């Protein structure tokens, strides 16, 4: 017996099923990242400077992977919230599930003044996509203190300040020479 409503060629029949898989992880932040997050809430960017080679890691990792030495609170350094765009990508969004952007946008690497510390995948604000260039001087746009959140900071979000900084705004200063940033690896 086949009830009329269930004929396979009945256009109103059920042919597809949403199969929504969701995995939720909760993890404690490791102490150096917890400290980084607490300082972000205060409006400060901190890193650890390797006592051996002098490279600065942001956020702190608790070690220098090049020298294989531990870094501690004693190696902590407060970093500038101004810097230079040293690389960027224009992303043209495809409307896949979870993509909220609809127009082309930039993700930039910003090397902070005074050292090598570089924040990757940063938003730029108040600048058209086609005006972005390597060497552009920018400053962090902090959210007001009460609106900052470190809920999205993870142990793996290297260089992220999402939830505390809206992005980086051009300062209007003359560009830094782009050549000095070419062929460099960032950490």
């Amino acid at each position, binding site marked *: *017996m*086949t*009830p009329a*409503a*269930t*004929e*396979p060629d*009945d256009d109103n*029949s*059920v*042919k*597809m*099923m*949403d*199969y*929504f*898989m*969701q*995995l*939720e*992880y*909760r*993890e*404690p*932040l490791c102490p150096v990242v917890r400290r980084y997050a607490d300082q972000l809430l205060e409006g400060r960017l901190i890193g650890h400077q390797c006592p051996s080679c002098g490279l600065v890691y942001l956020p702190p990792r608790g070690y220098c992977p090049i020298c294989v030495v531990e870094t501690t609170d004693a190696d902590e350094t407060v970093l500038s919230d101004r810097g230079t765009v040293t690389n960027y990508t224009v992303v043209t969004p495809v409307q896949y*599930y*979870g993509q909220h952007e609809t127009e082309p946008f930039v993700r930039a690497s910003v090397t902070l003044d005074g050292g090598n510390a570089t924040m990757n995948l940063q938003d730029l604000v108040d600048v058209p996509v086609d005006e972005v260039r390597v060497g552009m001087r920018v400053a962090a746009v902090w959210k007001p203190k009460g609106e900052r959140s470190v*809920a*999205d*900071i*993870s*142990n793996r979000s290297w260089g992220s300040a999402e939830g505390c900084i809206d992005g980086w705004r051009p300062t209007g200063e003359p560009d830094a020479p782009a050549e000095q940033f070419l062929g460099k690896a960032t950490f």
Partner: protein
Amino acid sequence: MTTHTIEFPYTRTLGPVIGPFLTGLRDGHVLGVRNRDGRVLVPPLEWDPATGEAIDVDFVEVGPAGTVETWAWVTEPTRKHPLDHPFAFALIRLDGADTALLHAVDAGSMDRMRTGMRVVARWKDERAGHITDLSFVPEEAA
């Protein structure tokens, strides 16, 4: 503490047997298929699990009442469970079927559960063509 959520929003096709089965649930019927030996398989399958032979699709309406063959009480349901309060997962052989369907029995209390008890389908008012369009309750409570 930080929380990360990874989501995979798949849509899958249902095929010539599960599609009509879920369409039946949406419309308030439970359908099985009859295999070559005349046994009625619920939930319906495209192949006979006993022989591996393809099944000639011949739908049979079963239930809506049936008999609990075995059960396990769920004391603390998770948010993915079909009911938000304690319930039993049970293998239910619906009237007219020769195999059992795994589903939820909303018995209120574990004391009301026993193997061999009679249960009957309780349908949601708004059905989507999904296995959660129904659950089961003890027959005396229906």
